[in-house]
């Protein structure tokens, strides 16, 4: 028996079947949580956003257009919740000065508009184990250095594996913008990653 599609399960839930909603949560937990851990930058916050996202799905259940796909909708809502979360967290924890200290100034990192050639970036070998803590921290530091909109599009594209047109549709931005943002995101991430792998990491 084929497992029911996300959309069919969601329809069942709208008809009052709670188990169907639970199945949806269970089904999307690993991928969505991975996406959120990377987007938010830490586990506890990602779990909060995870819950907020499903809560929002539940509350907006009646507004969902049944002809659309469930998964992109879920990820887009989760990304929006993540943005809210980071904004709130920033307000609570950080007192920004009017002129923030530019920590990257003077370390010779590229000027505006510099080009990155992916072939010159040191990438892990295909069989290299990546789930060690050090790599994990480096990836997160590289991501944290990206503005939210770039991080969001990079992670949405990578974790959802959907077309530019679909991303544009979900985020409500023009196709050209999706492309150029993703290009900039990959370039910025590659640059950060490379810089980190060239220099010994900070303590």
């Amino acid at each position: 028996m084929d497992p029911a599609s996300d959309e069919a399960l969601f329809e069942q839930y709208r008809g009052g079947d709670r188990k169907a909603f639970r199945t949806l949560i269970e089904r999307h937990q690993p991928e969505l949580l991975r996406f959120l851990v990377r987007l938010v930058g830490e586990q506890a916050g990602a779990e909060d956003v995870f819950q907020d996202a499903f809560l929002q799905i539940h509350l907006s259940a009646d507004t969902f257009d049944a002809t659309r796909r469930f998964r992109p909708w879920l990820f887009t809502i989760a990304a929006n919740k993540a943005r809210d979360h980071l904004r709130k967290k920033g307000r609570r924890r950080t007192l920004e000065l009017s002129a923030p200290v530019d920590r990257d100034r003077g370390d010779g990192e590229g000027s505006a508009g510099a080009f990155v050639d992916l072939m010159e970036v040191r990438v892990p070998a295909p069989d290299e184990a990546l789930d060690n803590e050090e790599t994990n921290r480096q990836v997160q530091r590289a991501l944290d250095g990206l503005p939210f909109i770039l991080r969001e599009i990079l992670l949405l594209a990578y974790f959802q594996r959907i077309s530019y047109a679909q991303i544009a549709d979900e985020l409500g931005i023009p196709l050209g913008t999706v492309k150029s943002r993703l290009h900039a995101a990959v370039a910025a991430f590659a640059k950060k990653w490379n810089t980190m792998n060239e220099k010994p990491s900070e303590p």
Partner: protein
Amino acid sequence: MTNGQDRSTFNLTAADMAAMDALVAAEFDVRRVGEAHADRAAQALSLLRVLDCAVPCEVTLVDVTMARVMRAGAPAGSRDDAPEAELSGDDIEALDAYVAADFRVARVAASLRERAAAIDAMVTVVTGPIGSLDKDLVDKTMRLIATTPKGVRGEVEMSSSARSSGFRLADLLSIAAVLLIGVAVFWPMLSTVRTFQVRQGCASNMASIASAVGSYAGDYRGSLPMATASLGGLPWWDVGTTPEHSNSANLYTLARLGYSPLSRLACGGNPCAAVQPTSKDAQDWARLEEVSYSYQIMFGTQRPVWDRAAQGVVLSDRSPVILRAARKERELSPMENSPNHGGQGQWVLRADGAAAWLHRPVIGHDNIWLPKAYEDQIAQFLSVLPEIRSRIQAGQLQGTISVDVEVDSGVAVLGTETPSTATDAFVGP
């Protein structure tokens, strides 16, 4: 941290852009990328592959999410004029008191007893013996709740719809109680009952461990179980390495030497708990997540002993602070309760053999997750924080206050700490 975002922009070369577009079109399957872009697309994918990460083993997230969703009531579109149902302060207090009284109404303070009785009636509906209450009734109740706007008192509607279904009066009263208390409490209550069962299981584990430690102490001149005599100052949360670097190996001694089965050192609220040794000569759990109980770090200036006169904490439900610190999370909350019991509290076992349930991780003024020296530092840090903040606002100080400050102020838990005194409650993995 995130404040250090780089404002300079980068872009890909034209060849990389084309390869990236091809990779996205192929849904990140390099084999489907045309030959012209294959090499660069493969390179891009190898880079992006680092974004994958392992998510830790926590099954409770689905439960918690589901509970929050159910508590939220009906979806937006179908509850236009429904008022919000919230438990009143009195009901929350009564619920807490009822749970604290081990679900016995008679033990709840008189002022809250009436409300506790209503909650008790509801619990009976949910968990009562099937003999007097058929499953159908529970299902009908659930359906009714799902279709009843939140906050609406349900007696009137209930009686008419229920009469036709032929409920007995006793059932009706129970259902009325459910609706009076409000839908909001229903799902959390279900999980509370589950949590309660786990809590009872742990109470029985506490008794069993106390008896095992007692036997061990009898054989080893009053000493608490230990695997090695040299732990002080070394990292102690590397579970599964060597006893010198893993405090839990000391507790594991009980299982290794046959004083206690491993299953008695496993809490039902820990989804990763190990109940069987991985091998005959195992000396420790395999990893931190498998350890259900935190054990007192014994090697301070004085060694605590198992003694009727001693007051120290020997064991507790696992420490959330150590779990987070070992995962290198930067935000640690010393007041967080153990994850073993849904964050509601934790058991502690004292050196005199008595077990107690704590709603907060504090005994007297002593936080059980942190050594005394740290508790003092946190108190000091919190006392100067407003001053630092106002000086930054006044322009006298440069910089930002972020979680980094907490690390710089020396309250990072490093996994090498020891208690300040023999009476300082401080449990490790």
